[in-house]
């Protein structure tokens, strides 16, 4: 099951040239770009691991593309996303966030039913990948 998280996630995977264009756009707007990775695909998993510091004083996308390449090299089977942070007063939040890497196999989620008191049933999802410990999931 293909995970859809962040911007462009219903489009085919972005090529490097397309990623670079998005980065150029972010930099032109003065947004700081950062890279994060994880191997927990749950949609509520908001806090991913940071790959290096957010890049605040970068002028050209080439440097970020280099960082993405080295992150992919270290975590070839993780989810990797690129965030663009807008530091404008009053905004101070992400303006753009999209996946640039995903595992080759994504087993998807199991539906878990929990019987409550009476006839109540609570539902939740659990990623099949999360049955194994962190770092061995994909």
């Amino acid at each position, binding site marked *: 099951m293909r995970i859809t998280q962040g911007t462009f996630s219903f489009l085919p995977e972005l090529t490097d040239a397309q990623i670079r264009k998005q980065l150029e756009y972010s930099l032109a707007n003065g947004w700081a770009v950062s890279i994060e990775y994880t191997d927990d695909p749950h949609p509520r998993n908001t806090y991913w691991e940071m790959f290096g510091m957010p890049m605040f004083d970068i002028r*050209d996308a*080439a440097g970020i593309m280099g960082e993405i390449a080295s992150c992919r090299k270290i975590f070839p089977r993780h989810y990797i996303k690129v965030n663009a942070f807008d530091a404008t007063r009053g905004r101070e939040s992400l303006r753009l966030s999209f996946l640039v890497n995903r595992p080759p196999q994504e087993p998807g989620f199991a539906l878990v039913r929990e019987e409550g008191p009476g006839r109540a049933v609570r539902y939740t999802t659990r990623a099949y990948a999360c049955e194994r410990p962190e770092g061995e999931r994909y």
Partner: protein
Amino acid sequence: MNAVTDTSPSEGPEHSAPAPLDLERAYRESQVGQVLDSLERDLVGLAPVKRRIRDIAALLLIDKLRGTLGLSAGAPALHMSFTGNPGTGKTTVAMRMAEILHRLGYVRKGHLVAVTRDDLVGQYIGHTAPKTREVLKRAMGGVLFIDEAYYLYRPENERDYGQEAIEILLQVMENQREDLVVIFAGYKQRMDTFFHSNPGLSSRVAHHIDFPDYSSDELLAIAHLMLEQLHYRLSADADAALRAYIELRRDQPHFANARSIRNALDRARLRQASRLFERRGAPITREDLETIETADIRASRVFAEEGAHEH
């Protein structure tokens, strides 16, 4: 189609040949002329430097034109070395160079990142590589200016981390030519030794530009240019005094060409301000405010030492 068959055979080759390339138009469109003109206007002296930069700009423009015909000679090596004494305008020229390269499309952003050894070399094992990479990342798309580059290499200490920075630098200079141009700067002699002991670096630096010292007349012209930008002017006597000051200052230790002149003018401004402040009862005119008098310059330490020698 008909037009081609109608032409006489002698005109045939002309038709098949592409339209002559418009060098003038390419030059105008790149707007590099403006930068070169302002280089000529704003920088006093430095004739050999200006000539070399014109040459490089011409080469790059022609290369670009050749590229449009598919006569590509590969990405040209643009890394440079600026050698010369302090205050001869290396950083200023590097900034202009970044602009020229940007206008010609050889660097994408055209900003200048000026660093020294401290910004590249770490303090403990494993600290250098991330630090150097961080700087390189910042400089991508522009020009990396390494001032006093010879400090990177310390032959007397074989465990010095500078070598590591040089190696990373080399790798990027070679593999990411289209992303980054590196300019090394420093004293002529020490740079020569530096390049001599790092042949890999030397062979990747295509342009060596030497910055000559300024003559006294040029320094005076620079002083006038600086004062003009600050909306000051020299009285006639002060002009002579400044000339004498330059002559004396040249022979003293730690003379840093234009930088020494800037510092001297800053101090003269200080003295002018306190001179005006002293007589604050009297009315002050606009002329008073913008004129630097002889006394402001004559009060310098340089003249005092000269007097001391005579006695």
